[in-house]
């Protein structure tokens, strides 16, 4: 028993000291008016009130929600489609799975650089293709138009996260016993009916886990927005993480930054509660 505690102790110290304590510290900071180099004093909920009246923050809040809902939805639908596709026997090649996973394997910091180039106004591949096909006459400013830039962030997020969905859902599909499909066929079920009545109900647990994971990762993402747009143009693609970073270090308002990053917390907590229930069951 003592050995058990001794083995767990180093991990417990690191988790408590460098995760537990900082979360509490962030909560406290968000209730002060601390700036870089100044500890500040307690101001209650003033930062939160100020944030909700701040148009840049409201934009970042809306973006974080929009990006998460839209990209997780697309990743779920496409991920399921890709998993069903790769579950076909004749497509079950190891190298297809392996190659498809690369956007997820390679850190997003590096993969997203390629999209910065592809979406470049003057020299990028996308404008080159559209012009070569005579679909557009002048290049489109993918990353400097507020609406298109939001689309670009969602698109790159899907590119990065789709492999994760596809591979975990594929693992769920492979685990479904063949006999269930055979039984459904005997009952006269066709492709669509088999999907709805056999496949979907059986992959609900793994699908839920994947979605909840993805919600947390997407709503807290920093790298994609930072590399692609730095939150621009004119703060139109800011999300919680990038705006928290900008408030704290560009403007020196650490307390405001802490309050912004804590807006991730409710989504985290909700996902965690659902995940713990799902994980305990399986």
């Amino acid at each position, binding site marked *: 028993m003592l050995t*058990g505690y001794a083995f767990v102790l180093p991990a417990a110290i690191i988790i408590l000291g460098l995760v537990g304590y900082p979360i509490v510290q962030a909560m406290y900071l968000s209730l002060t008016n601390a700036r870089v180099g100044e500890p500040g004093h307690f101001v209650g909920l003033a930062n939160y009130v100020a944030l909700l009246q701040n148009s840049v923050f409201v934009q970042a809040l809306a973006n974080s929600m929009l990006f998460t809902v839209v990209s997780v939805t697309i990743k779920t639908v496409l991920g399921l489609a890709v998993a069903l596709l790769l579950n076909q026997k004749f497509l079950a090649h190891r190298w297809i799975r392996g190659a498809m996973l690369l956007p997820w394997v390679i850190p997003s910091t590096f993969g997203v650089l390629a999209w910065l180039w592809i979406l470049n106004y003057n020299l990028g591949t996308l404008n080159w293709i559209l012009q070569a096909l005579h679909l557009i006459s002048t290049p489109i400013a993918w990353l400097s138009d507020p609406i298109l830039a939001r689309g670009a962030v969602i698109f790159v997020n899907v590119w990065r996260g789709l492999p994760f969905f596809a591979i975990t859902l594929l693992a769920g599909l492979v685990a479904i016993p063949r006999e269930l499909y055979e039984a459904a066929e005997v009952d006269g079920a066709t492709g669509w009916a088999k999907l709805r009545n056999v496949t979907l109900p059986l992959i609900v647990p793994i699908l839920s886990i994947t979605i909840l994971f993805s919600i947390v990762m997407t709503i807290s993402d920093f790298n994609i927005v930072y590399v692609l747009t730095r939150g621009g143009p004119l703060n139109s693609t800011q999300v919680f993480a990038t705006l928290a970073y900008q408030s704290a270090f560009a403007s020196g308002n650490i307390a405001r930054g802490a309050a912004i990053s804590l807006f991730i917390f409710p989504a985290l907590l909700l996902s965690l509660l659902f995940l713990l229930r799902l994980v305990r069951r399986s």
Partner: protein
Amino acid sequence: MTRTKQAQPRIGSIRTQRLVGRIVGYAAVAALLIFTLYPFFSMLITSLKPVSELFNRTLSPFWVFHPTFKNYEDLLTQTSFLRWFGNSLFVAVISTGISLTVSTLAAYALSRIRFPGADVMGSAVFAVYLVPPSLLFLPLASVVAHLGLDNSLWSLILTYPTFQIPFATWLLIGYFHGIPEEVEDSARVDGASRLTILRLIVVPMALPGLVTVTLFAFTLAWGELIYALTFISQSMQETVSLGTVTQLIRGDAFFWGQLMAAGLMAAVPITVAYAFLSDYYIEGLTAGSIK
């Protein structure tokens, strides 16, 4: 006779259907692979382009006509890329080493030894696994400042285990559960300590799992951005992800070749390791989200 006559056209149409199905399937997979892999191909082609081709908007972006290593040469001689690369290697190797040791001990205890609080600790590990760096970077900045580690690579070695340990422990608990407890029994009868058993029996048996977890942990450290951005502001102390993103992205066309070369070179170590371990990696990825 009549039965075969009736059956033949049906078999034929099923065959045609299957053939069409296969063609559609292969076409969909081809489209999927182009979507996922084109950015990396584009990086490679662009990194090999001379400035004359980079600037020329009439040339195809899909090919390089006079490939050159000039961008790589400039990247290695005119920027601090090699230094950043070395810094990242230093940080990633040490933080992964620490995390793996700590996680192996914790995961072994949580999967094998029954003690009060083990369940709570298991759930806590999972909860912390979900806590994103973007929630912790501000308070951690003050921890780092208190310890006087600003602008030191040790600030990263200290903080990277915060995301490496929870998921490494979580994955390893799964792997250790997969090793039957009986293999340890004879050693325990002989009076071997838990630590000896872990070192000599469990670790060798869990080696594929440990290797996968090492790759995961190393990759997370290698690509980490927000902590490095927050704690490090001297060029010589930057990591490969930080230096590439902050020093090489400059709307200036001359840098595109170098930027793509940098992204590609930074991706190579991960990709090579992954190429050898992809089966284990996929198993680990799915295990992490199922178990």
